């Protein structure tokens, strides 16, 4: 991997029964931290805590080292190191499948995690905290038509191949990771939401607005999320963590919405002269449960309520909420590695179809597939779009992006003229499908998803190319000269 993102090397040993059931694995990871640590120790920890991938491995040993080097310092890319170690694991799984003479899909199905299994650090897995990986694989099989032959000769020199790259990812927050939210009302009853979350294209603010609209029974268009972030006036948000915002900020917003609802009800109860427990909210109004035709609009009660005699009772409604992630520890136990460093996993599986020229090793990515357990597909278009963006970054990472140093360790790749990201005309067709197993502690069951499109792509591409050229290629990026050198050595 590109050292200024993540230079990762790994040695992985796996043992399995003859029919491909993995019994044990021994893994060692060395993360090139560069000259400064920044966030790389946390990435090393994330690698260790999730090293098995979405597979049940009963006997597991893992050492994950963070190594100072004289390279550029590395930092987290989209995927927070999962895009790198999953490449290592998924390459190994494919090679194991070949040894057992079973298909790449079959070995993954056979070893897929299920509720009741343990994570590498001893966390018991459930449908809520880790979704349904098996179902993702089954859907991927249909989407990418994996049961047909994975290698097809087009002519003497051209083959079409398919490769799989599965993933799981848990966030790796600090134990004090928290979010806050403030809800205020406008005169017309529409609402403003102030959250400190930083939006970088993950669509988190849209999803949160949707959740809030649903919770407050108000139309989406009437929820105004403050777009800019001002740390002076906004509630603190832990840090820029795109994929965690629907969970962490979402929980704070739900909390603030509950607070606003109770204030709205309190104001309404004074005006309607009935106990708050008889009130409900519907269509931007507080109504009486057993007499829903009687109610007061948010606009009439958000700033106190005017009684018939002209007096105003109640108070201005300001919803306040916060959430702090609980039940996680920042450290893993020294002796056995046990500990819970994240709250939940998102699982999924990706595949690619490539056309490879066996004469000069040039190749084109024709199709890229993804099936993810999203929890609850509350915004199909946006969620699909964010995932496709991740897939595109994953492909670019796999086939182009690298830092080049000369013999004197002088950095060569100093501009985007030579540091190539994937150009639009190289982009494949993107096909995305979903599994929906709600995450019970997440607002509306929505799982973290915005980083995840990137995670399985590098491995899927390497698996496909290895199949095409009949040689295991265990490095990134992969471009024609890399294949040439691998075959020559």
């Amino acid at each position, binding site marked *: 991997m590109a050292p200024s993102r993540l230079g990762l090397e790994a040695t992985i040993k796996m043992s399995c029964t003859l029919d491909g059931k993995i019994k044990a694995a021994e893994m060692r990871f060395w993360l090139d931290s560069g000259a400064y640590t920044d966030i790389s120790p946390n990435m090393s920890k994330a690698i260790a805590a999730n090293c098995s991938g979405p597979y049940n491995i009963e006997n597991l040993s893992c050492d994950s080292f963070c190594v100072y080097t004289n390279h550029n310092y590395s930092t987290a890319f989209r995927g927070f190191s999962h895009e790198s170690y999953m490449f290592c694991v998924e390459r190994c799984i494919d090679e194991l499948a070949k040894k057992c003479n079973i298909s790449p899909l079959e070995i993954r199905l056979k070893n897929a995690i299920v509720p009741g299994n343990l994570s590498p650090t001893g966390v018991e897995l459930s449908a809520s905290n880790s979704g349904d990986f098996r179902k993702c694989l089954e859907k991927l099989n249909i989407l990418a038509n994996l049961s047909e032959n994975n290698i097809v000769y087009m002519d003497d020199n051209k083959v079409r191949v398919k490769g799989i790259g599965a993933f799981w990812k848990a966030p790796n927050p600090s134990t004090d990771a928290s979010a806050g939210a403030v809800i205020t009302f406008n005169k017309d009853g529409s609402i403003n939401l102030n959250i400190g979350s930083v939006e970088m294209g993950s669509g988190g603010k849209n999803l949160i607005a949707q959740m809030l609209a649903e919770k407050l029974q108000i139309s989406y268009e009437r929820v105004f999320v403050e777009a800019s972030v001002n740390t002076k006036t906004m509630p603190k948000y832990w840090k820029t963590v795109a994929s965690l915002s629907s969970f962490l900020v979402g929980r704070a917003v739900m909390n603030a919405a509950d607070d606003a609802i109770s204030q709205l009800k309190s104001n309404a109860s004074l005006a309607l002269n009935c106990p708050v427990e008889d009130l409900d909210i519907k269509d931007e109004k507080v109504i009486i449960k057993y007499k829903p035709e009687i109610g007061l609009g948010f606009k009439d009660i958000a700033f106190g309520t005017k009684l018939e005699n002209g007096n105003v009772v109640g108070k201005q409604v300001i919803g306040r909420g916060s959430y702090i992630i609980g039940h996680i520890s920042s450290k893993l136990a020294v002796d056995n590695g046990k500990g819970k460093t994240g709250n939940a996993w998102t699982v999924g599986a990706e595949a690619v179809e490539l056309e490879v020229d066996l004469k000069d090793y040039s190749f084109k990515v024709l199709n890229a597939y993804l099936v993810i357990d999203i929890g609850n597909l509350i915004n199909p278009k946006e969620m699909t779009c964010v995932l496709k963006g991740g897939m595109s970054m994953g492909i670019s990472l796999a086939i*182009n992006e690298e830092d*080049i140093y000369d013999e004197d360790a002088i950095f*060569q790749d100093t*501009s985007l003229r030579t540091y190539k990201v994937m150009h639009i*005309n*190289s982009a494949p067709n993107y096909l995305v499908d979903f599994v929906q197993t709600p995450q019970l502690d997440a607002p509306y069951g929505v799982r973290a998803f915005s980083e995840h499109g990137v995670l399985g792509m590098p491995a899927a591409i390497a698996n496909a190319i290895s199949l095409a050229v009949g040689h295991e290629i265990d490095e990134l990026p992969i471009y024609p*000269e890399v294949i*040439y050198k691998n075959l020559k050595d």
Partner: protein
Amino acid sequence: MIPKTFEYYKVDSEKEAFDIYSILSSENKKVYYYAGGSEIITMSRASSINVDAVIDLKGIKSMQKLKMDGENLIIGSMATLSRIGESRLFPLLGTTVMRIADHTNQNRITIGGNVCGTIIYREAILPLLLADASCSVYINGTEKEIPINSIFNQRINLSNSEFITKFKVGSEFLNVPYFHLKKTKSEKIDYPLITLCALKYNGMIRIAFSGLLNYPFRSLEIEEILNDENLSDEEKADSVIERLPKRPANTITGSGEFKLFLLKNMILEALQKFKECV
């Protein structure tokens, strides 16, 4: 963006360009003729050149021509790559220039700018070398027509005050069988590891390369090998590799060894193509 103040002159005629050049350079200013800007802008940004003044030639009407003139195709040096490609007047040249940079840049880069640039690839020169084109050079107030093959040695040799006004290609070269193949590190739009241009004229293959060495070249010796009827295709390809003017160097985009590996396949492909179109 160019991060310093500089003078900019947009001129209407060759004479005006030359006169302004003479005045500015007599003031000891570092003056560049400007033919699209992609190099001047990027090199200034990287501080590898220091520009005091630029003279923009793109507004000179006579240098924008792109049309048949009797038995010759006239290509004004300020014709953009995209105009040349879309005109389809010289298919090999069109194909070659439409694989230089991306479409946005093709709308800006001129053939004169590419051919005279400092970039080592200068792919637009390859078809001109093969078609025995000539160029008109504006020297000291007069225009002089010079065969490309005599003014070109690794690059077009001009003094700083001179510039090319147009290229002339004989119509007998325009629609001959041709072959263009560009191999890059990975992305389609990128500098070439190798760009190969070839055409068949009077039954003989002519061939030129960019990217292989640090300058574009046509080699008569290589053409002789390719046209040798006593050699098999395989022997021809091996022999070409043996007789290159020098060994390809390792560059950031690819090793010399890999370039030779590609070259052999490319030559075989070219030979095959010309066999098919006989």
